[in-house]
């Protein structure tokens, strides 16, 4: 048994948790989520570099919420989403225990969000090299080239909404895209509709996205949608100085303001 498995077994046994959300092995060495409700099942649990999925997304599911005491295995992105979700009043009714494994391979257990917040702030992640490179490329393009790039990308979108499904911040019980009175976004996957969907998604996540990159990773047609919100977060941090998933009561860049916000673009 790994230290992680030992720890989780212990948590089950002393009654701290009644449901554990973690990862287990799948074919091709991939990691998939697993849900275990008894100490006897802990041997499935793994924690490898492949464990990228953001498990906090499951905390919104009614079935999960029914469990009284939830344990969740969290990588750094998941920890950030927990912090952000807390700041958005989404976790107040869930009794949770957060487990993570640090760089020294030690298993850490947090029983409250203050500790999670502290850990996140001490281990705040940077953008991946790959994302940095992509963003740089896009930003060095001319406007027309960028338009061309995104047009081609969005043309491929099939509106499967996988990006939404994996996003821990997309927790609305009904989404604007499903709103038909009025119909904000065309249902069919034609390109203006696709563009609107992605614009709206990016706007709704700007200043809230915690850069886990799941949306881009999951996209079946390979659109790097996560870059939109990644860029927005950079712009927002530069402009307003706020970071996402950093503090449980940091607020949201777009529901506050400063009288001195820049306005050179306003005539």
């Amino acid at each position, binding site marked *: 048994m790994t230290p992680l498995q030992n720890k989780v077994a212990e948590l089950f046994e002393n009654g701290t948790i009644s449901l554990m959300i973690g990862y287990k092995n799948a074919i091709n060495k991939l990691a998939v989520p697993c849900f275990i409700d008894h100490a006897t099942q802990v041997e499935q649990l793994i924690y490898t570099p492949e464990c990228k999925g953001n498990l906090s997304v499951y905390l919104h599911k009614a079935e999960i919420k029914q469990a009284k005491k939830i344990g969740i295995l969290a990588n750094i992105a998941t920890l950030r989403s927990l912090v952000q979700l807390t700041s958005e009043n989404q976790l107040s009714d869930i009794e949770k225990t957060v487990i993570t494994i640090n760089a020294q391979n030690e298993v850490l257990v947090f029983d409250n969000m203050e500790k999670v917040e502290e850990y996140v702030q001490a281990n705040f992640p940077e953008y991946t090299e790959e994302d940095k490179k992509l963003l740089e490329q896009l930003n060095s393009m001319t406007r027309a080239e960028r338009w*061309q790039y995104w*047009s081609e990308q969005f043309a491929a979108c099939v509106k499967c909404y996988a990006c939404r499904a994996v996003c821990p911040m997309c927790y609305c019980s009904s989404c*604007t895209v499903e709103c038909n009175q009025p119909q904000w976004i065309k249902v069919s996957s034609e390109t203006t509709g696709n563009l609107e969907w992605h614009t709206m998604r990016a*706007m709704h996540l700007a200043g809230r996205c915690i850069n886990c990159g799941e949306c881009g990773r999951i996209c079946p047609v390979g659109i790097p949608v996560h870059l939109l919100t990644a860029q927005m977060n950079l712009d927002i941090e530069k402009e307003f100085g706020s970071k996402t998933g950093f503090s449980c009561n940091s607020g949201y860049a*777009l529901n506050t303001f400063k*009288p001195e*916000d820049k306005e050179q*673009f306003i*005539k």
Partner: protein
Amino acid sequence: MSEQFEPKIVAFVCNWCTYAGADLAGTSRTKYATNVSIIRFPCTGRIDFMLLMKAFENGADGIIVSGCHPNDCHYTSGNFHARRRWIVFRSLLDFMGFDTDRITFSWVSAAEGAKWAGLVDETTQRIREKGAFTDFKKLDCSTFEKISHDAITE
């Protein structure tokens, strides 16, 4: 002489400052271009960015968004919130390669009828020079072409 392109421009304005400013331009009989039509909102804070997207999708060539000057908002802070939203929205559009020059953001107070008229003329002229907004239309065509092209090559 070829006929001059006349753009369609939608103005999203707040009721208290810019709408009143536009009314003042009227009472002062200040003349300006016919290209701009106003949609009245209670406050710039109410203006949803999706409405701007829908306007472009439905054939607008340009957009004016205008409200009260900072600190003058009838509702104290709607324009400040709007300003933040525009900052982010503009930077998103720019990152997606959208021509943000097609959107004029402005503060026009209830006393600035002349400024309103000037803003309309200036925006109309700018959009006229840019020509019709076709990015969205092209988008649909190119998709269609791409799909048919893919279909043929496969």
